[in-house]
């Protein structure tokens, strides 16, 4: 669409996404109507289920936390043109890292020593699990997409073996570790607020949400404000030029992957340290894969990633409520709705760009052609 004028930032970053979301919801509304429910009622439930109910917002943000971490993981690698599909495995192994720290240090050390170590453990293990594919790509030319997929399977095997074997809590049957000592529990938001006498509904939402927000900031600074970030982006956009500029391409790729894996690993702080306080079989539940969509829908920018994460949080939590409230709406129905929203406000994000641009020109909000 070369001869449609470019959209102004505000329209591109706010108006267009809003329109897309609206269309996506309209489509879902039709689907819901087709199965004989009232769309407006349904969306009402969804919104209520995602924000209004006492603990609903907590759950929404709890999911958001996971998506922020996995989204950041994908985005970081993406800036180095590495397609990291391994977030799932890296987060899984990150849980292991947190657990090691919790079991080794937890019993003896106070929380202000244990927790940082656990968080570090999660990041370190995740980083390692991503660094190996990064190394193989940079030094041996093994394609990152395959190796990260393979490492997801490897992580799964490793964890089942550990959780159903050596690390399994005896005297019960689920493949999971023992509960960590309280020194390794991330405080729940409800507990924090309670300290200040504010009473909010109990939910899995915990401090790691703030950690995620911090991570967004770190990501922004890293990519756009540090020299390493500059090198990462250069390698991503033009490795030849990077070489010309004296940047060690292989090294940069490995570092970028390590950071990417660390972000993924941090997802475990939410699930393992914040919610379950133990490692559970398959606690990653696909958040790692969803991170791909989150990062790309968020255009690999922290604000975009946050909004995309929030959107997915709403879809997960609000979706659960839909399932809850309507007998005819099953969890597959919710899945379908999620798919539609990803399709229309993700993949078809630019569908309304040209018409919108022309419209804005017509109503004079954007200046049209001028001289070169």
């Amino acid at each position, binding site marked *: 669409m070369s001869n449609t004028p470019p959209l102004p930032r505000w329209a591109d970053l706010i108006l267009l996404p809003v329109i897309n979301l609206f269309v996506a919801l309209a489509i879902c509304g039709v689907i819901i109507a087709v199965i004989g429910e009232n769309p407006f009622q349904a969306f009402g439930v969804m919104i209520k289920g995602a924000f209004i109910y006492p603990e609903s917002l907590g759950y929404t943000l709890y999911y958001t936390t996971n998506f922020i971490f996995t989204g950041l993981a994908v985005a970081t690698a993406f800036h180095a043109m590495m397609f990291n599909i391994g977030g799932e495995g890296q987060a899984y192994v990150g849980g292991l890292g947190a657990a090691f720290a919790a079991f080794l240090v937890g019993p003896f050390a106070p929380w202000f020593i244990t927790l940082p170590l656990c968080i570090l453990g999660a990041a370190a293990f995740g980083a390692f699990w991503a660094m190996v594919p990064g190394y193989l790509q940079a030094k041996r030319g093994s394609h990152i997409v395959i190796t990260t997929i393979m490492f997801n399977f490897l992580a799964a095997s490793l964890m089942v073996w550990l959780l159903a074997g050596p690390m399994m809590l005896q005297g019960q049957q689920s493949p999971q570790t023992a509960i960590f000592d309280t020194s390794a529990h991330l405080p729940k938001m409800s507990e924090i607020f309670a300290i200040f006498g504010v009473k909010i509904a109990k939910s899995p939402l915990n401090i790691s949400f703030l950690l995620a927000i911090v991570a967004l900031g770190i990501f922004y600074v890293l990519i756009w404000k540090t020299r390493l970030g*500059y090198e990462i982006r250069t390698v991503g956009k033009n490795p030849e*030029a990077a070489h*010309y500029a004296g940047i060690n391409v292989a090294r940069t790729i490995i570092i970028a992957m390590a950071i990417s894996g660390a972000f993924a690993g941090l997802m475990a702080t939410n699930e393992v340290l914040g919610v379950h306080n133990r490692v559970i079989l398959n606690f990653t539940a696909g958040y790692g894969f969803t991170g791909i969509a989150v990062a790309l829908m968020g255009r690999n920018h922290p604000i975009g990633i946050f909004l995309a994460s929030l959107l997915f949080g709403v879809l997960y939590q609000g979706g659960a409520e839909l399932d809850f409230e309507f007998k005819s709406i099953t969890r597959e129905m919710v899945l379908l709705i999620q798919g539609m929203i990803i399709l229309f406000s993700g993949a078809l994000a630019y569908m309304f760009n040209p018409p919108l641009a022309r419209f804005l020109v017509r109503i004079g909000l954007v200046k049209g052609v001028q001289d070169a």
Partner: protein
Amino acid sequence: MSDIELKTSGDTPARFALELQGISKSFGTVRANRDIDLQVPSGTIHGIIGENGAGKSTLMNILYGLHRADAGEMRIDGTPCKIRSSADSIALGIGMVHQHFMLVPRFSVLENVMLGSEGGGLLRAGRGATLDTLKRLGETYGMVVDPNALISDLNVGTRQRVEILKALKGGARILILDEPTGVLTPQETEQLFEILKVLRDDGVTILLITHKLDEIMAVTDNVSIMRAGTMVGHRETAQTNAAELAELMVGRKVLLTVEKGPANPTEILLSVDNLGAVSSRGHDVLKDMSFDLRGGEILGIAGVSGNGQTQLLEILTGMRVPDRGQVNILGDKISKTSPKNPRELREMGLAHIPEDRHIHGLVLDFEAQENVVLGYHRDDITGTGALIDRDVINTHCAERMETFDVRPSNPALNAKNFSGGNQQKIVIAREIYSNPRVLIVGQPTRGVDVGAIEFIHKQLIALRDAGCAIVVVSVELEEVLGLSDRIMVMNDGQSVGIVDAADTDVNQLGLMMAGISQEAAE
């Protein structure tokens, strides 16, 4: 429209193969073509010149159907026609050689030529016919290429031929060439022009875009001049001269020759000693190369591209590790056992203007200001703090653009949105800023308009006079002759000899480039 009678083929009254009227085209908010009128008599070679970004390619792309004009009319042989896609233009007998190669590197010559005219559902069907066509064209115009060679293995000159063969295969009657000589050696250019003349005599109408005025004077019958998206004039080539054309396109007077005083060389800053390099395929691409270079002098390196110049530059700038011999630079040494990476060399005071600005010189998706610190991003020009300081970079970039007259002077614009000449200026501005003691330059003015060329040459001379040792590799013999104090000619990875720029000429260099030793050449 045209202010003067255009020269037409033979004595027949003007028949126009092509007429454009009121063509306009905008990209987003950029108006690339504004109300363009153009008449091209059939059977003539028609030159089109203009500064970088003047809108030449855009106009040609419209004519060829790659872009759709926002407004305007076209007539081919007097009959009005709508060209919606390149398919239409091909059907109308228009062929085009693009400014940037349209060849699939992983394909063979044959596959590239067949693309679009396979002559049947199976390649087998058309293969024979295409081979014949290639053979025929090859013989008639002396453009012989191996149909089974992979494009990625061919040098630019040969690729250019393949492009032309592609354009001609369908028997084009109007042939558009968008800066075909940008990457050619003088010899190759000569051959190309011979071919064009033959084509013209066969009645083919040719549109030739180039920045090189001497070429315009050499082959064209008429010439049209563009500036900032508009047609500013048409001339019959015989009735005009380079200076006038230059003034018309740039809008001011331009010097067409390099002005420089005598060199006053200082101590040796760079000495190359029996340097050798082996390609990944195991061929010797660089053989016992030796020379010295002093501060305050410019060593030009002439040679048909693909004779080891690239490898030499890569080694001198740390992008490639030598396989044999060594380089002594600024009192330090580069060799297989003690390699140096580009960073270290920059820190020592070396700067590098790469041969290909798109591959090495720039990150096209970065803003101009981000490109202006490429390679120096760990120095203070990105701020002294732990983090990059965008304001510092921005002011630095603005200042650079100011001094080098980069247009548009907008640090936040992506590099890819500058025209070729301005991109080159950005690279040079960056590399010269560090006022290096050794400067390695590859193809300083490839695809750059005369205005910019003049400017760039001035900069290089100024740097020389400031005591910098400069190596310039260029396929433009005129340029090498104009800039250099001494000239080394390379052939087959070796130095054929080093001559004083003062007492040599194009012919001698040309012969030496063909591998004939200096003495024999004299």
